[in-house]
């Protein structure tokens, strides 16, 4: 059973969403629907499975429906049609009380513009989810303090959010989401409002935290580099449709259509592709020049051994951790794998 399962979700914005459902099902595009009926198609038949403990990145340009999609998971937005299963429970069947309970314990969320409460201190902000869970103040403060330390904000717990910089505010947002100890974390363009250096810092912090906590994270972004760095799987949305779901390498090596191709064309492939992806297996290779070989590990990114190869014009021998030869990469293959498609 997947942790999160989305089945055939449609979301249409407008006065009478039901009236245009048939049109959308018959395959009308977003523009056609808008022109003929004045309704906006937010999501068009999206189905997804997200496994426990993985980071799923949902990517698309603005207006592609990614923020709409993430808000369906905790029902900040209700779909026009379709089912959402979390741990096998149909979220759509929840009554208001169950929904509140579900939001308190199952999910937490980080927002693009932080969504902090300006009238509460950092400590109270971080403890907000716990307050909703009904925990006592002393317990709240204890957990909040732990999380504030985990994101490196010690000493700021009694400040108000507007006294902090953007990066620090988002750390508070992250700590608030971590504090409820929910299995699922939703991150809506969480780092998009931060400047590049701080963003990269926060990404690293998230990766470190995730390696420890193993939460299921759904991350929304419009930045391909960010999605490649964070995602175990990436889903690409275009005009409300899910055009491709796959691992970062899948997306780069086998883009499903022109839209995805356009997306990945400027990416630094050497940073994303590992040696084992492009190597030819040892038993399939023959007639390779073994006189001038450089040893690389299978999990190394191309970026890491590329300079050596350029300088020496050598071929690569790919080995695993215990030194067994797994395959070879010729200079030529390396070149072609790095060429933009």
């Amino acid at each position: 059973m997947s942790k999160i399962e989305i089945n055939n979700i449609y979301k249409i914005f407008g006065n009478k969403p039901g009236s245009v459902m048939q049109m959308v099902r018959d395959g009308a595009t977003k523009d056609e629907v808008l022109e003929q009926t004045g309704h906006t198609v937010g999501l068009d038949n999206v189905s997804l499975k997200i496994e426990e403990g993985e980071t799923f990145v949902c990517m698309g340009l603005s207006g592609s429906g990614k923020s709409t999609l993430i808000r369906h998971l905790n029902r900040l937005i209700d779909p026009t049609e379709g089912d959402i299963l979390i741990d096998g429970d149909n979220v759509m069947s929840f009554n208001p009380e169950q929904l509140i309970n579900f939001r308190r314990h199952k999910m937490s969320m980080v927002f693009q513009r932080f969504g902090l409460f300006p009238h509460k201190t950092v400590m109270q902000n971080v403890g907000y989810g716990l307050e909703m869970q009904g925990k006592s103040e002393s317990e709240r403060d204890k957990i909040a303090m732990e999380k504030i330390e985990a994101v490196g904000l010690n000493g700021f717990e009694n400040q108000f959010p507007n006294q902090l910089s953007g990066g620090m505010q988002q750390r508070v947002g992250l700590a608030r989401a971590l504090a409820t100890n929910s299995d699922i974390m939703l991150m809506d363009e969480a780092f998009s409002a931060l400047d590049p250096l701080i963003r990269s810092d926060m990404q690293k912090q998230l990766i470190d935290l995730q390696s420890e906590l193993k939460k299921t994270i759904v991350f929304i972004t419009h930045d391909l580099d960010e999605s490649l760095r964070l995602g175990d799987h990436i889903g690409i949305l275009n005009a409300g449709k899910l055009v491709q779901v796959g691992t970062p390498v899948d997306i780069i090596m086998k883009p499903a259509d022109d839209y995805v191709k356009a997306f990945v064309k400027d990416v630094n492939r050497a940073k994303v592709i590992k040696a084992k992806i492009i190597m030819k297996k040892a038993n399939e290779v023959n007639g390779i020049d073994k006189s001038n070989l450089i040893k690389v590990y299978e999990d190394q990114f191309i970026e890491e051994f590329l300079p050596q190869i350029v300088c020496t014009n050598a071929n690569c021998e790919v080995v695993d951790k215990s030194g067994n030869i797994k395959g070879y990469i010729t200079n030529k293959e390396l070149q072609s794998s790095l060429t933009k498609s």
Partner: protein
Amino acid sequence: MNIKKDKKLFFNIGLLITFIWLLIISYSSSKRKPDNVGELLNDFSWLQKWPKWLDLPLMKWINIGFKNLNENYGYIFEAINNFLLFLLISLKNFLIQAPWPAVVLGVVVIAYFASGRKIGTTVFVGVCTFFIGFLHPIFWQKAIETTAIMVISIFLCLIFGLPIGILMSRAERIRNKILPILDLMQTIPAFVYLIPGIMLFGLGAVPAIIATFIYAVPPLVRLTDLGIRLVDTEVIEAADAFGASKKQKLWGVQIPLALPNIMQGINQCTMMALSMVVIASMIGTRGLGDEVLLGLQQLNVGRAAEAGIAIVLLAIVLDRITQSYGETLQERSAPAKKEKK
């Protein structure tokens, strides 16, 4: 869908029928109608000048209704009258019997804490308060009478205005129904409700309180509604995402964040209430307003001006106190600004 359409059609037909019924009533109840209806078809002179029989007997209806109200439900108004009068007199006597330096000191202390311990504002308010009595000894008591009426009116405004504003912000339908009533309250000339007020409550302070309430409550309702609706959507989403119930959201997030706007509403409410003081003096309410009126009646420009200045001073005192409290609140929720030294 069809039911909705039918409903609208029936509603419109109903309106049309009511209109025709009103026409018939006004025609048949008029004393100046032609001897028989047929004449209207022969002699078209009634199309030229507005005919005397085309006259809705609204005046008669209201007079009958008002008389019934007064005769049958007079005891309700008497009870309201007694209650308000009791509050007013207790407050007034308390302030008048207190030694005047104590009252000035009390105002200064309130100003000090409301302004967030700003010395400048506090001193200014203190000086203004002192000058009210300094202008003319009799103004001290008059100003207290005026203030007592205002405090009771504003108290009424808060009791009714805040809940109505909150309701409006939560349901579009309620807002659409209340907005025209607020427009009516703000545009209808004050004398239209002052005079019936006298008939229901008798001459004196109570009709002035009621009139002040009608005149001053709309800005409070509007700003409460606006303030709650203007709370950042992402902050509201954050509260929702962490499972806040409606009540927790309202008291924990929406109202605290709307408070600067609500305080602005109370400030506006106070200012409008004060501007009602002079008008209310015309129905025999004692206070600073009747000094202005006396000055005018005696063509004593100096006396009227002196009283006018006293009213302005009172306005400044009340404005500074309510305004600065709002500002203190606002500083926290506004984006960080550079510290002024």
